[in-house]
């Protein structure tokens, strides 16, 4: 009986979404020299899913992702933007990458690296916690936006 209970517990653990955490206040940022004032949720989805490769002002877009080891930001970004787990996002990009059709967003190791890359590249776009954004970047979308 104990074995059955243990097996049931293990199964429930598998079903439980990993990494439950408080919602972070995430914002999408671009280079301050970029002419884009705001992005819509659809803009952000299309840019991060590789469907559009230009920002609305015509600049070639360079989306930047956070690595999974950086914390909860990446998981919450895709969960709230697309309702998808990171494994589903990875599977999506594997399909495009290995059919030679598109390259996934560049992976930054830390939020500081995201801010630095966006600051140095006019078409770069990244996501960070609102409290971490500074004068090097400009907020164009908030994850709570519709």
């Amino acid at each position, binding site marked *: 009986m104990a074995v059955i209970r243990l097996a049931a517990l293990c199964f429930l653990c*598998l*079903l439980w979404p990993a990494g439950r955490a408080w919602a972070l206040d995430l914002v999408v940022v671009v280079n301050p020299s970029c002419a884009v004032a705001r992005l819509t949720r659809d803009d952000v*989805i299309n840019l991060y899913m590789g469907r559009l*490769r230009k920002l609305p002002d015509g600049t070639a877009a360079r989306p930047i992702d956070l690595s999974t080891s950086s914390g909860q930001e990446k998981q919450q970004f895709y969960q709230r933007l697309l309702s998808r787990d990171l494994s589903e996002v990875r599977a999506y990009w594997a*399909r495009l990458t290995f*059919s*030679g059709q598109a390259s996934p967003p560049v992976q930054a190791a830390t939020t500081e690296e995201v801010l630095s890359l966006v600051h140095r*590249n006019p078409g770069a776009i990244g996501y960070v916690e609102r409290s971490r954004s500074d004068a090097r970047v400009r907020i164009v979308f908030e994850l709570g936006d519709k």
Partner: protein
Amino acid sequence: MSAILKTRVVLAALCLAIGVAVRADDSLDRPWRLAGFGTLGGTWASADGIEYRRDVTQAPTGVAGGAGAANVDTRIGVQFNYQLGADWEAVVQALSRYRYDGSWRPELSWGFLSYSPDAALTLRGGRLGLDVYPLADSTNIGYSYLPVRPAPDYYGGIPMQSLNGLDVSYIRPLVADALKFKAYAGLAVGKATADAKGAAFDLADSPIVGAYLEYQGEPWTARLGYTQIRVAHDLPFHDFYDALRNGGIPGGPELAERLSVEGKHFGYLSVSLGYQQGALQAQLAGSHFRSDSEVLPPYYAGFALLGYRLGALTPYLLLSGARSPDSHPVSGLPPWPMLAPLENTAGKMFEANLNNLQTVALGTRWDLSSYIAIKLQAERIHGAHSIVLWSNDAAPVGAFKTTVLSAVLDFVF
């Protein structure tokens, strides 16, 4: 350099590339990127004589009659991208899998130069992936799709995975989503197993053109595409064709023409619809293979896939099938006893590439991490003909039923 030595050199390069890829991180400042994918899998099938294959480019697998093997799904590939300035990129992908000749010799899946003068427009030239796989794009990247393998009833009849040529794609916003158009032209690259002795149907030098229109949105995606090929070389049964054409047999040249594929056109029309919203994902696709030759009869195929994510597990149901229109071709040869071997061969050729089967598969995907997934799948196949399943000498005459169990570990790096 001998074939064995070449194979060892390419395998060593694959291993080295994997080692480098595991250590590599993406960077905006670095011009190159190395990545890879692979599957370790085992498959077991119940019925005698009906060997399970995932597509027609595989030699007989031995997976039948209660026997299992790892050759159906196991594969590994690496891809190297190099950015040559703002607009140009070079991409090379090598793949090792169980092939038409029963070997695992690595092959160049694609190697091309890509030019994007505008963020919406991309031109590519070189060896390109044949982009006729709706909702899968390539059938080799196990990690990228939900089931153990894309439905063989639907995808398995396509005998090539790449072409040497050019393609152009254009993507533009459509309201809140995107619309993509792509056209391609070139010479096909691919070989399909023709008999158990290792003879192969070679599609080299066959001109191929195609195009598709794709809607990319959330939660819907849709695609409509058409590809046409004019086959350059006949099936590898030269003695048979020669006997019919030059043997002075009444009706022989006419039968040879009906069973020939050289210089004939074949078309592949496909339409697909995808839906992914939260934990639910669904796919529906249908295709029609059009043929000018009686040895590769036309057929319709389709599949429906439904999956629902529960944490790290995603159970799914996959229904698929393929069917050739009913026909009962006769050879037209005189009923002479001395022509019995030719009559027998012609009858087998008329039947060998018919499709009439249905598959029900149940399975689950378990995402261990965002790089590794394990999948378990059980499927029940019943039908009378299949272009993909291999009928050996122990195959039942007429209808068959078989149960197939699969377990795979998919990974990307």
